[in-house]
Each structure stands twice: as structure tokens, then as C-alpha cells.
């Protein structure tokens, strides 16, 4: 080993604490970035693969009364790769006494030849017999059943029937059951018949040819050609559904999560870079005199720079060796957590080369770049300058206007004044320390703000739903009949009826969009309180006015206030003027028209399809009690409930959706606090080490222990406070940027951003506690040495 490298190795050993801090800083940067990159790359790929493995339908058409010959004819059409038939029915499953959950039952002719929207057998029976059901694996916990259990299932107006769970399947193409609070089951046609539904298929699933597999326009064109052909052939097409090609139904949430992974990956890289720059700068400042000696005995600048770059690369390599395997391990473990939550299968844990390349870059290139300024600065000084370096600014204090201003502060005690001046003596170091802490603090504050904004958005969304229970009937019933039946149930303070149906937008070229819910509330409905983003809500005298929710407005239809759209609802084509856009978080695309107008165009007279119920006490217990009573009453009155949801159900779905994100944000915050604390402690310790001689002089001239402590601790607190202010200033705009971007991906609308005071308070508390503890630690280290040793300290 060459003498130069021997020197480096010995320097490491001599400065174990500094070396350890640099390794730890690089380690945390590589680990944080690597873990997130690994998680991101595997999750993205496996979720897509898992979804594509199901061979998802490119579009589906709801049509009835067809046979195998029609399927064969459709299969031969241009652009169609394959066609399959099945029946999908919405049902209700009794998961506890009188507690009914929305369920989706898929009735399939031949379970062994499913080619579209496939699912995998997990355990138990592979084929559901008569009166049996195969449960999607995530639905087991939602319904609180295990294989072999039986439960009541009810479809529409029919009586409930007992079904036994005989097998478990995994359907990665469905939204996770736990997240949606729904049950998915696969049944045979015979069982469907037993539940009172004709054993005929109602859905045609299509997969288009490879050329247009991911081309939404091409798929739409093919879908509407098929629809036209079906209609021309005499079939009644109820609905054409075209999902976004290649995008999992939970893609928005996954993308939001992936956005956070990317964001925090980049942030941890930046944080690590700033911290490493700070630490390496400190490490090199302790080497100034040795650099001078080496230059004096003939070392060229490049040789010295090479030695320190080699040192940084060795430290980076050590960190990489430690961090990369851990990042792989933790990343893969988190992939399993994500796979469980988002219900996808992980076929391969392979990590792409670019993830490793970026980790190596984070471990070697970033530290080398971070070290460039201190290395250039350290090796640039002439031998004479370097030999005269006393560890702090080599220029005379008082030489700049800023120094003079600091020097004029005389309102505080002299030791405190010394702290203030000391804090500014190495302005570059101060800026680096403040930046490290500020970036760390800002990430923490932003993470907590986004979390609070998410909760605030959900709270506001829940406020907009000013009801406790909502019932959606199998068909429209007279409003008077509904009120008469449900109005007598004790514990109810208000019932509001709304009309509506599924509708589509009919475009001039003959195509339609995906079906959406058209709701017709009374203009003075109090149970719908959706915040208006643009335009206005419905007025009493509105006729052909329509209000869209933001998801509808953003769904690619490019509709603006004042535009006229043609809807297709129950076979009629009303032309409506868009008068407003409302924010409706968590829901699907919906449009709202006046109740009276809807009755007029639909030919109904006082009919309603759904009711919103407000209970007296508005607690979840009351909701449960009243819900059971209403169901019984409506059943007795012959009013069939197709769907029921309660405020607490909706709240639960929201909580399930944001739970993962909230957990991730908290995890990221903890990581940031650790890195931030490290930055502060190292910086303070470097600062004290650099002034060890000065401390010795103060002690020699009579400074008491308390004076030294006060000076060091106050300097640390002052640095911490600067960083806290910077973090707060950075965090506020950043919160809005992240909240708006994240909300846009996750909810298709910016979050209702709020600033969480706890983020600011927690970071201030962390700063104050850590600066005090770090100050005490480093001060005692300085005070431990005898004065004569401190005076000769290098």
C-alpha cells in the first residue's frame, strides 16, 4: 500500500467519529434512495405485469340475449383479438346480523377456459358448485369469513340465499376488496339462477388486437363500431365501458404512492448530498495544515486532491457495501407489504440496473461532487496561507459589512454575543448546516402538512355529504311511498329523495363516453353540500342546466362552463348547459340536474331512485341501529334496496385509501429527523473542534465552565433557529406544490391544503432539544481536556 493511501487509512482511524458520520450520512442517503428506487421499480413493474397477466378487457359491452354464434361473429371482427361472455351482478352480502355489504358476483360458464379478466386459484375448490362461491382472497377479511363458512347473499328484489365459501381465488385486476369495502365472489350460472337472476350472460368482454392494445382512441373506435354493429343487428346495448388501457383500476392511488416514493427518493438524495458536503468540508478543514505540509514537501495539487477524492470514494464504497444490500432487503419487504395492500402478485423481485446505477451514483458520485468544493478550496490555498490557518476564518473578522453589523450587536451579554459572532465566522459552514437542517425540517413539515391536507380534504368531502345513510333502490319508486315507509322509522330527522339513472354523453360522431351516474336532487337539497369550484350550483328555475363533478370535468371530455352537452339517459337525448363544476372527492364521475327537470324529461312524476337519510344523533352507532330498522321497513313496504352506504362506510373507504400514504409519510418523516439530527450534531461537533484552541484560551483567561457551555449551546441553538425559519419558509410553498400535485394524481383535484402546526412545533422542539444536547456533548468534550492540551490542539 502506498504511503499516501496509508496516510488516508490512518486519518480514517484517527478521526473515527468524523469518518463514521460521513459513512452514516452516505449510508442513509444510499439506503433511503435505494430502498425507494427498489420499491418503486419492483412495485411499478410487478403491478403492471400482474395486471396484464389477467389479460384485462380492453372494453366491455353490456348487452343481453346473445348466444355463442354472436360471440364467434364478434371475434372475427377487425381489431378484435378475443371475446368472452360472463354475467356481472351487483348483490349484497350479509357479513354480520343485518349488516349488508355491497358485493360483485361474477357468474361464469366455464371456469377452466377463462381468458379475459383472469384470476388465479389460491386454495380450496377450483370450481364453484351449486350454492357455492369462490371468494377473492382480499374479500375474506372484509366479509370476516373463512373457507367453509356460509353467508346470506341477496340480489335486487329477490330473497336472500345461503352460499358457502368453498374456495379462494386471487384477482389482481380488481380494486382491492379491503380498500373498497366490497366483496367479490365467483359463482356458477346455476347458483345465479338460485339467486333469482336469469342464468344468461350480460357482459361481453373484448380484448383488442396488439396494434391498438394501449391506444385509447383505437379501442374507442373499435368499441363503438362493435356497439353500432350490435344495435344494427337488433341487440339493445345498455352500456359500453372503456377503461384506461394498461392502467390498473387502482392506478391513481398507486401513481400517487409512486409519486411520493420518487419525491422522497430525490429529497433524501439531496439531503444526503448536502449533509455529505457539510461533513466532508469539516473533515477537510481539519486537514488544512497537513495539506500545507504536503505541498511544502513537494506534493502537487492534483496529487493531494486525488488522495482526498480516494478517501471520499473509499468512504462511499464502504457505505454502498452496507447500504445497498439493506436497501434491497427492506425494499423487497416493502414490495410485499404493497403487494398485499394493493392485491398484486410479485413474480420477480429483480431490481433493474438503473436502480443500482442510481444508488452507486448516490454513494460515489454525489459524495465526490459534494467534496469537490472543499477539496478545491482546501488544495487551492498556498502553503503559506494554509500554514497560517487557525481553523476559523482566515480573513480578519470585521472585514465585511455583515461582520460589522454583527459586531455592532451589543445589547446582549458578551458570551452570548460571542456565540452570535461565532455562528457567522464560517459563513459557508453555517449555510451548509442551515441548508442540511432546513431541507430535513422542510421535508418533515411538508410530510405532516400533506398528511393533514389529505385528512382535511377527506373531512371536507365528508362535510359535503351531509347525510348518515344513503339507499339506492333497484328501480325508481314513488317518492310519497318511500317517505311514508321510511319516515316512520324512529331516530330519523330528515329524508331527502333524489331521482337519477346511469347516463352517457352522446358525441356528435356517434360515440359515447363511459357510463356515469346522473343524479337529480331537489334544488334545495340539504344533504348534498358539494363545494363549487367553478360556476354555480343548481337553481330552482333551472331546466336544462347540469352541474358536473370535478372527476367528470377532468375525465378527458374537456367540458367547460357554458358548453352544451348531449346526454343519453333512458333512451332520451336531452341537451344540457354546463352551469357549474363541483368538487366531489372519492366519488366516480357524476352529473347533477334539477329533480323537476329530470321528472319532466324522464316522463316520471314524483319518482325517486335514492334517498339520503339524516339521523337524530349522527353517530355511527345510531347509523347502524337506524339502518337495520330502515332496511326492514323498506323491505316490508316492497321497496328493494340495491345498495346502501353509511357515512361511516364512506369514511372507512377514505381511511383505507389514505392509510398507506399516511403511513409512508410518517416513515419518511422519521428518516428525515434522524438525518437532520445527524447533520446538526456533526456540524456542532466540527465547529467546537475547530475552535478547541480558542476555548483553551478562554479557559486560560478565566472563563468558567458555564460560560463555555453558554457560548457553545447558544451558538448551536442560534444555528438551529436559522434552519427552522428557513425550513418553515421553504415548507409553505412546497406543501402547496406537493399537495396540489399529489391531490391531482390521487384524487384528480388539488388537496385542500392546510398547514399542520404540529409539523412546525415538532421540528422546533427537535431542533432545540438536539442543539442543547449536542452542545452539551461537544462542550464537555472540549472541557474534558487540560488547558495546555487544548492550546496545542490540531
Amino acid at each position, binding site marked *: 500500500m502506498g*504511503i499516501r493511501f496509508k496516510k488516508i487509512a490512518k486519518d480514517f482511524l484517527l478521526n473515527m467519529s468524523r469518518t463514521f458520520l460521513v459513512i452514516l450520512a452516505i449510508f442513509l442517503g444510499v439506503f433511503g434512495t435505494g430502498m425507494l428506487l427498489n420499491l418503486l421499480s419492483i412495485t411499478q413493474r410487478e403491478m403492471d405485469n400482474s395486471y396484464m397477466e389477467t389479460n384485462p378487457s380492453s372494453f366491455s359491452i353490456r348487452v343481453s340475449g346473445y348466444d355463442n354464434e354472436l360471440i364467434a361473429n364478434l371475434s372475427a371482427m377487425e381489431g378484435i383479438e378475443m371475446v368472452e361472455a360472463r354475467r356481472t351482478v351487483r348483490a349484497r352480502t350479509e357479513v354480520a346480523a343485518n349488516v349488508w355489504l355491497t358485493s360483485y358476483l361474477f357468474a361464469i360458464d366455464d371456469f377452466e377456459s377463462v381468458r379475459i379478466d383472469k384470476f388465479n386459484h389460491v386454495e380450496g375448490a377450483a370450481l364453484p358448485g351449486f350454492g357455492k362461491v369462490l371468494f377473492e382472497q382480499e374479500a375474506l377479511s372484509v366479509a370476516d369469513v373463512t373457507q367453509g363458512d356460509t353467508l346470506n347473499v341477496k340480489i335486487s328484489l329477490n330473497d336472500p340465499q345461503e352460499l358457502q365459501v368453498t374456495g379462494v381465488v386471487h384477482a389482481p385486476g380488481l380494486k382491492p376488496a379491503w380498500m373498497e369495502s366490497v366483496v367479490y365472489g365467483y359463482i356458477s350460472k346455476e347458483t345465479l339462477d338460485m339467486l333469482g337472476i336469469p342464468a344468461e350472460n350480460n357482459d361481453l368482454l373484448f380484448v383488442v388486437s396488439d396494434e391498438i392494445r394501449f391506444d385509447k382512441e383505437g379501442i374507442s373506435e373499435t368499441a363503438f363500431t362493435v356497439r353500432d354493429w350490435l344495435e344494427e343487428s337488433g341487440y339493445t346495448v345498455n352500456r359500453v365501458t372503456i377503461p384506461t388501457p394498461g392502467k390498473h383500476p387502482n392506478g391513481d392511488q398507486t401513481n400517487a404512492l409512486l409519486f411520493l416514493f420518487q419525491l422522497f427518493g430525490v429529497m433524501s438524495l439531496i439531503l444526503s448530498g448536502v449533509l455529505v458536503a457539510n461533513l466532508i468540508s469539516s473533515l477537510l478543514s481539519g486537514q488544512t495544515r497537513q495539506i500545507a505540509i504536503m505541498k511544502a514537501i513537494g506534493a502537487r495539487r492534483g496529487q493531494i486532491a486525488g488522495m482526498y477524492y480516494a478517501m471520499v470514494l473509499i468512504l462511499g464504497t464502504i457505505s454502498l457495501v452496507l447500504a445497498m444490500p439493506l436497501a434491497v432487503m427492506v425494499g423487497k419487504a416493502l414490495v410485499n407489504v404493497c403487494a398485499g395492500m394493493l392485491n398484486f402478485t410479485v413474480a420477480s423481485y429483480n431490481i433493474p440496473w438503473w436502480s443500482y446505477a442510481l444508488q452507486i451514483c448516490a454513494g460515489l458520485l454525489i459524495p465526490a461532487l459534494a467534496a469537490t468544493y472543499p477539496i478545491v478550496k482546501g488544495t487551492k490555498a498556498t502553503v503559506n496561507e494554509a500554514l497560517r490557518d487557525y481553523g476559523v476564518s482566515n480573513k480578519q473578522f470585521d472585514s465585511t459589512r455583515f461582520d460589522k453589523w454583527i459586531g455592532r450587536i451589543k445589547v446582549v451579554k458578551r458570551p452570548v454575543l460571542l456565540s452570535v459572532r461565532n455562528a457567522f465566522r464560517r459563513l459557508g459552514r453555517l449555510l451548509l448546516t442551515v441548508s442540511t437542517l432546513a431541507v430535513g425540517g422542510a421535508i418533515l413539515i411538508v410530510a405532516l402538512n400533506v398528511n393533514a391536507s389529505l385528512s382535511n380534504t377527506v373531512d371536507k368531502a365528508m362535510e359535503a355529504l351531509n347525510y348518515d345513510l344513503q339507499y339506492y333502490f333497484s328501480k325508481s319508486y314513488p317518492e310519497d311511498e318511500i317517505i311514508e315507509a321510511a319516515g316512520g322509522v324512529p331516530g330519523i330527522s330528515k329524508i331527502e329523495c333524489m331521482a337519477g339513472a346511469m347516463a352517457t354523453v352522446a358525441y356528435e360522431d356517434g360515440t359515447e363516453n363511459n357510463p356515469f351516474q346522473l343524479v337529480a336532487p331537489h334544488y334545495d337539497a340539504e344533504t348534498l353540500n358539494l363545494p363549487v369550484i367553478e360556476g354555480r350550483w343548481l337553481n330552482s328555475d333551472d331546466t336544462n342546466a347540469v352541474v358536473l363533478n370535478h372527476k367528470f370535468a377532468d375525465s378527458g371530455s374537456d367540458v367547460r362552463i357554458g358548453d352544451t352537452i348531449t346526454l343519453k339517459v333512458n333512451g332520451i337525448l336531452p341537451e344540457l348547459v354546463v352551469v357549474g363544476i363541483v368538487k366531489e372527492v372519492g366519488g366516480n364521475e357524476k352529473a347533477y340536474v334539477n329533480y323537476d327537470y329530470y321528472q319532466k324529461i324522464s316522463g316520471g312524476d314524483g319518482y325517486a331512485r335514492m334517498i339520503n337519510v339524516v339521523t337524530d344523533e349522527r353517530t355511527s352507532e345510531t347509523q347502524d341501529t337506524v339502518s337495520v330498522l330502515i332496511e326492514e321497513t323498506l323491505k316490508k313496504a316492497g321497496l328493494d334496496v340495491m345498495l346502501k352506504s353509511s357515512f361511516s362506510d364512506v369514511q372507512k373507504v377514505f381511511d383505507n385509501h389514505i392509510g398507506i400514504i399516511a403511513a409512508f409519510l410518517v416513515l419518511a418523516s422519521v428518516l428525515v429527523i434522524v438525518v437532520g439530527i445527524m447533520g446538526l450534531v456533526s456540524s456542532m461537533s466540527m465547529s467546537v473542534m475547530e475552535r478547541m484552541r480558542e476555548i483553551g484560551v478562554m479557559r486560560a483567561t478565566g472563563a468558567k465552565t458555564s460560560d463555555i457551555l453558554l457560548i457553545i449551546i447558544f451558538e448551536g441553538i442560534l444555528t438551529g433557529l436559522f434552519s427552522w425559519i428557513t425550513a418553515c419558509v421553504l415548507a409553505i410553498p412546497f406543501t402547496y406544490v406537493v399537495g396540489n400535485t399529489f391531490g391531482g394524481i390521487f384524487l384528480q383535484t388539488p388537496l385542500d391544503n392546510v398547514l399542520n402546526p404540529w409539523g412546525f412545533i415538532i421540528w422546533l422542539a427537535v431542533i432545540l432539544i438536539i442543539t442543547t444536547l449536542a452542545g452539551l456533548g461537544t462542550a464537555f468534550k472540549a472541557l474534558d481536556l487540560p488547558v495546555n492540551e487544548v492550546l496545542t490542539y490540531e
Partner: protein
Amino acid sequence: MEKNLNFISLRHVKKTYSEEPVLKDITVNFPTGEFTAIVGKSGSGKSTLLNMVSGIDRPTSGEILCGENQLHEMNEAKLTAWRGKNVGIVFQFFQLIPTLTVLENILLPMDFCAIVPNSKRTQTAKKLLEKMGVSRYADTLPTLLSGGEQQRVAIARSLANNPPLIIADEPTGNLDSQNAEEIIRLFREMADEGKTIIIVTHSRELSECADRIVSIHDGNIEGDTSKAVG
């Protein structure tokens, strides 16, 4: 032919720090093989003069010539290369690298300058330590040695690349009289072997040992006395 006789020459050298003149107008020659002592009070400019000669500082104006080399026009990289080949420096506080052993401290300048072939470096370093009487400390860290011993190691290091010029700033300033005498003897021996020696000193003993004494006062050369060559 004056150029060939003088190892290094300073012509009208001025140096100012923060607009304060430290060297005012110095013209002086240092002939090859001569042992020169620069004396003067603290702040007179003698260390600054030494730094000009060793190339670790540059003049504000004036010329410094060493053979064909014009030091005042060289950039830092060229000065470093020149210094590595031509100058050995001895500091008052020894300035040995504390993390390297005594032997490794001698090997380090050889490693940087690559003048001595790699295969001969250890042997050369050991010979130098032997010559300075500190070979038994070859594998010891410098901090475990006395001041006198450390200064001998520093002198050995200054000779590592066998430079023609040895510069020393107060080499006995931090030593007791016995050690100081030993160091003075070593400098005399080096001069007798043909090295050009320039030292800054307050020590009367050391200056008396020199061939020539240059006195500096307030940035100017006040006196320049040579001993009669016998």
C-alpha cells in the same frame, strides 16, 4: 557569470499584506553551497523573505530567479514541482504528519516527487534516518519523539529528494540548548557537503555557525556580513 554562482537571486522584491509593506525593496543573492543565516526582530520580514526563496509565497513585485527559472512568474503548480525537486523545508514546529511513522514521513515526499526510484526509497530513507541518528525510531509515530528527535526527522525529510537548497525557519526555536547544538551541527555538515542552506533564526549560536549573516530590519536588508573564506 553571476547567474551560475548564485543558486537563487532576489531583485527588488516587494511584498505587502493588506496594504502593509512587509518587504520593501529586497535585492539579495544566495550563492550555491553557502550557509546563510537571516536574522532580525519579530515582524522584520525575515520569514516572509524565506517564504519568497522557498516558493511558498510570491512577491507583490520584483523578481526571484533560480538558474533558468523565474519563480515570480510561476503558477502554484509549477512552483510546487520546482520546490519538490529543489527545496527541502524545515519548520520550527517540525510539522511531521502525525498519522505516519517516522520512516513513512521520509518516504512521503519521495512518493510525491518520484525522483528517487521506487526500489531505492526505503533504503534511502533509512540511510537518512541513520545519518540523523534517529533510525531506531523508524517505525515510531512522530508524536512519541522528543522535540530534538522530531526536528532531526524533519531534517531527514527535507533531504528525502536530495534537493540542492535547504530552507529552515527557526529550526532550533523550539529546542533546548543541547538539541539545538546537535541541529546546528547537522546544518553545518549539510553545508559542508555542498547544500545551499538558508535559515531564519534568532539563535546567536546558529547564526555564528553560518557563512554569512543577512540582517533584516523593517522590511529592508540592514546588514550583509560574510565570513572570510579560509
